[in-house]
C-alpha cells in the first residue's frame, strides 16, 4: 500500500519560507500562522524562527528579526534610525506627556483598571491623560466593573505592545522591581 507522502522539507528550506513570510507580513506574524501556512508543527516553526533570528544576529546587518506583540517581525536596527528617518522624512512621534505615561504605567500594571483606581494611585484626576491614551489607541475600554456606578475599566491595546516594543504583557518587568529604585 502506498501512502502518498509529502517530501519533507529540509530545515534550511523551512527557515527560508519563514523568512519570506515574516518579510511580507504587514503585522508581526504569529508562530501559529506560520505553522498553518507551512503545515509544520509549532516546535519546528519555533526552532526555525530562533535559528533565523540567530542568523540575523550573526550577520549584524541593518535588519533584525524580533518578537513583538505576540508575533515575529523584521525591522531595522536602532543604530540606523537617523538615516532611516532621513530617508522616510519622518520625525519621532510626539512624546507622551509624563502625566500620560504615568497613567499608562498604572493601566499597564493594574489592568483592567477603573478611573477611581487610577486616581487612588496617582493622587490626581487623570481624565485628560486617559483621553490622550484612548486617542492614541494605546488603551481600550475593557467593559464595566460590576460595582457601584459600574465604572469603565481600561486596559492596554496591541498598539501599546508595538509602540513599547513588547512581546506581551508578561515582558513588562514586575512592578515590585521598581520598589527599591529610589529611596
Amino acid at each position, binding site marked *: 500500500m502506498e501512502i502518498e507522502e509529502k517530501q519533507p522539507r529540509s530545515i534550511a528550506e523551512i527557515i527560508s519560507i519563514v523568512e519570506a513570510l515574516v518579510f511580507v507580513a*504587514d503585522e508581526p506574524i504569529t508562530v501559529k500562522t506560520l505553522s498553518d501556512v507551512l503545515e509544520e508543527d509549532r516546535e519546528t516553526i519555533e526552532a526555525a524562527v530562533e535559528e533565523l533570528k540567530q542568523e540575523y544576529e550573526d550577520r549584524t546587518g541593518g535588519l533584525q528579526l524580533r518578537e513583538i506583540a505576540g508575533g515575529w517581525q523584521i525591522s531595522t536596527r536602532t543604530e540606523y*534610525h537617523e538615516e532611516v528617518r532621513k530617508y522616510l522624512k519622518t520625525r519621532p*512621534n510626539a*512624546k507622551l506627556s*509624563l*502625566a500620560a505615561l504615568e497613567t499608562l504605567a498604572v493601566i499597564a500594571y493594574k489592568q483592567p483598571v477603573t478611573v477611581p483606581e487610577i486616581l487612588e*494611585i496617582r493622587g490626581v484626576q487623570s481624565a485628560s491623560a486617559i483621553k490622550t491614551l484612548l486617542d492614541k489607541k494605546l488603551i481600550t475600554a475593557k467593559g464595566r466593573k460590576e460595582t457601584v456606578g459600574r465604572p469603565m475599566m481600561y486596559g492596554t491595546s496591541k498598539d501599546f505592545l508595538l*509602540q513599547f516594543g513588547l512581546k506581551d504583557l508578561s515582558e513588562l518587568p514586575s512592578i515590585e522591581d*521598581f520598589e527599591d529604585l*529610589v529611596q
Partner: protein
Amino acid sequence: MEQQPEQLSFDFYKEKPHIARQSRDELRLTLGKFAGPLDLLLYLIKQEQANIFDIPIARITDEYLKYIRLMKSFDITLAADFLVMAATLIEIKSKMLLPKEITEETEEEMEDPREALVRQLLEHQKFKNASQMLYERSTVEQAVFGRGKIESDENNAETNASVFDLLTVFQKILSRHKEEVQMEIEREEVSLADMIKSLKKQIFEKKELSLLAFFEEMHTRRELVTAFIAVLEIVRTEGVKLMQTATFGDIILKKI
C-alpha cells in the same frame, strides 16, 4: 509643542517643582512635569532628606502648606486634590499629637496614622519608576522601523475608501463638471434694458409679481444682478410699489 531632545533616560527626581501659570484661573504645580499632591509630597520628603517610612509629619505638613499658600497667593483656584492631601496631612499630624492611651487592647493594634499615606506614596513611587521605564522603551522603539506596506487589495487606497472619501471625490467631480458646463454653454447676455422690459411686461400682465418667483427664473449670477437692478430701476421710474406682508416674507411687486 516643544521639541524634546532625544534622550534615553529622564530623571524625574531631579526636576524641581515649579509653579507654572497656565491661564488666569488655573495653576499647575509641576514636579518633573508630573502634576499632583503625591509628587509634591515625595519631593518635600526628599528635600528634607526624610525617611519615607518615618515621615516627620509636622515638618512636611508645614512645607506642604507653604506651597499651598504660595499657590493661593497667586490667587489661583487650587486643584481639589491638593486640598484633600493638605487635609489628610493635618489629620495625621493631629492624630500623632494626641496622647496615646495605652490600654491593653490598643497597644498591639495601634496603627501608625501615617501608614496609609506611606503605602500610597510607595505605590505612587513604583508607578513613577515604571513610567520612566516606559519612557525609555518608547524612545528605543521609535528608532526601529518595520517594512513599508505592500500594496494589496486590502490596503489599496482605492478600495479602502470610506463613504466620506467617496463623497469628497464625488464633490470634486461635480465641481469640475460645473465648470465644464459653464465653459460650453454660453448664455445669452440679458441687457438691463431687456430685463426692465420683461419685468414691466410681467407686472402689467399680472398686476402683482412675487419677487422671489421673478428671481428664481434667473439662471446666472449675472442675470440675478441685472434683475435686481431692474427691480430697483422700475420702482424708481414706474408706478410700482414693493410690498412685504411678513417680516422676512416674500416681497410683492405691485402696480399702483
